[in-house]
């Protein structure tokens, strides 16, 4: 292990900041190294979380508590968001469709395919990333800055086992449930919008001929992946908090941004894999 210097080096001893092309290259390199380091840390937390899921402490009460926090307390928020998303999507889709063709018979089929394959999971997870991710990062970050996490470590308790794993399990189940709920709400509001604005029969709108098992499987896979990613990314942001209350704020912001990016990144990967596996 490298020895820690007693004093910080003088400013004269530091390398002068690079300018021009070298400066840009240094900036890119610095960001790339930071990204790699973050990725490795995330991977470490994820693996340790999975390990503690099987070998860690059994605390069903804590998991139920976090399920309530993550799931039940997000139902209203998610219902409102997904309801409006459904209305807006169908309204805009219908208006754009009518500019090209006076036939809205397939708008329901395409909307439901898009909703089930992608929108219900991705938009629901983005909303959960803002609400749940921020909450997890703030809680863990506060514990870090108040040295409660250090106390846990001193007690030979792994903070991942105590703090991340229950949230991870709760989020895994609840994201799936909330996305299914959000899809149902979006379907209902979309159907109502199509009926009210375009006089489209609900039977015509609720057309699942374009939805196949691949769409449902892809949507569910996304729900599970997002449910796993949000607590891991947010927990990492919380555990990496430093610098007092300002650090907690930064950690919260970073948790929301990184969770959202993780959702989008996973969406890209899962969609690509899905299109490769199920080209139809």
């Amino acid at each position, binding site marked *: 292990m490298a020895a820690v210097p007693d004093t910080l080096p003088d400013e004269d001893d530091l390398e002068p900041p690079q300018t021009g092309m070298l400066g840009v290259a240094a900036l890119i390199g610095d960001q790339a190294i930071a990204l790699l380091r973050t990725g490795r840390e995330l991977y470490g937390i994820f693996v340790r979380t999975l390990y503690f899921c099987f070998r860690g402490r059994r605390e069903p009460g804590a998991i139920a508590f976090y399920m309530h926090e993550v799931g039940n307390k997000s139902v209203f928020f998610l219902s409102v968001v997904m309801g409006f998303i459904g209305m807006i999507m169908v309204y805009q889709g219908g208006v754009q469709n009518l500019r090209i063709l006076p036939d809205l018979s397939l708008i329901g089929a395409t909307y439901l395919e898009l909703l089930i394959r992608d929108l219900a999971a991705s938009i629901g997870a983005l909303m959960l990333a803002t609400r749940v991710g921020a909450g997890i990062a703030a809680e863990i970050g506060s514990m870090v800055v108040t040295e409660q996490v250090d106390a846990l470590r001193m007690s030979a308790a792994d903070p991942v086992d105590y703090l991340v794993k229950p949230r991870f399990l709760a989020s895994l189940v609840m994201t799936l*449930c909330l996305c299914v709920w959000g899809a149902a709400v979006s379907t209902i509001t979309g159907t109502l919008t199509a009926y009210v604005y375009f006089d489209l029969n609900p039977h015509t709108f609720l057309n699942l001929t374009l939805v196949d098992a691949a769409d449902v499987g892809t949507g569910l896979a996304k729900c599970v992946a997002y449910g796993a990613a949000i607590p891991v990314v947010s927990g990492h942001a919380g555990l990496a908090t430093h610098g007092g209350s300002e650090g907690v704020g930064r950690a919260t912001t970073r948790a929301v941004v990184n969770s959202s990016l993780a959702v989008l990144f996973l969406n890209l990967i899962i969609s690509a894999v899905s299109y490769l596996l199920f080209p139809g």
Partner: protein
Amino acid sequence: MASARSIEVKVGLLILTAVVLLAGFILVMGGISFEPTFTATVGFDNPGGLQSGAPVKIAGVKVGTVDEIRFNPKPQRDGGSGVQALVFADVTIEQRYQDAIHDNATFYITTQGVLGEQFLAIDPGSYDRPIIEDGAVVRGLDPPRLDRLLAESYDLLHTTLTALRENKPELRNLFVGLSKTLQGTGTFFERNQDKLDRVATNVEKISDESLLTVQHAREKYVDNPQIDRIMNDVERISDTSAKQLPGLLKDGRDVMRGTDKLVSAFGDDKQIAKVRGMIDDMAYVTKQTRATVDDARAITAQIKRGRGSVGALVMDEQLFDDLQELARDLKHNPWKFFWKE
């Protein structure tokens, strides 16, 4: 703060709701069916955009799915079924719809809506034909080739444009000629307006008269009740004939049978010779009778002319009167038979 128990209940309710929604979606709306199925293979030369998993429909009702689309590198016959195609689509159809599909059913690819996904549609075929068998291989109707239509339309348009571009002087001359012809025609009509009006009037009269003629002919030969009566009579006659014909035919048969018997009775040569002799005798007697009749006719003619004693007696009125006078006189004076004054 909510108790731990109430939290668990709320969480459980949310999970249950999500599970029910998901299961309901998959089972009820997802069209997953546990009905027994049978398979069929449909051959196409070009199935267009038909994909694996596409629905199979009869009259808009989903009855199955396309399982797999196989490409035949050589358009050889498929397992001796007699169907020759480049692409074979294996389809699974629910058994409860098997009775509706006959062996001359038409399998064709169509789209849902204007821009919808393609699916396989089945026209069930004739009801008097046998039902399609499990594992049957049939030939499908290829969808219309819009890409080829576009390519050929493009080619046609391109050729037309090239021809127009390369023949501009000729086209100009053509249009100038056309314009002159139209001008000349206009002048001709203007100059001969009166004649043309008369011609039109005459044509109108002719058409009116033709119409009247046709009407009259119709009244006389079509709407005339006499025609109906004639037709009724003909119908009655035919009806009566139809009723009487069997009896007549029976009588005819009897007559023919009698004739046959008669002929057979005179079948002997001697009998025939006798009959011939009788006929000859009858001919002689007839000849003599005719001669006698001729003589009698001559005598009667003489009497009518008043010749001879009988003629004078019959035809002379004076003699008749004298005889009448004589008879009357003798009646009143019978002694005159014996005594002459």
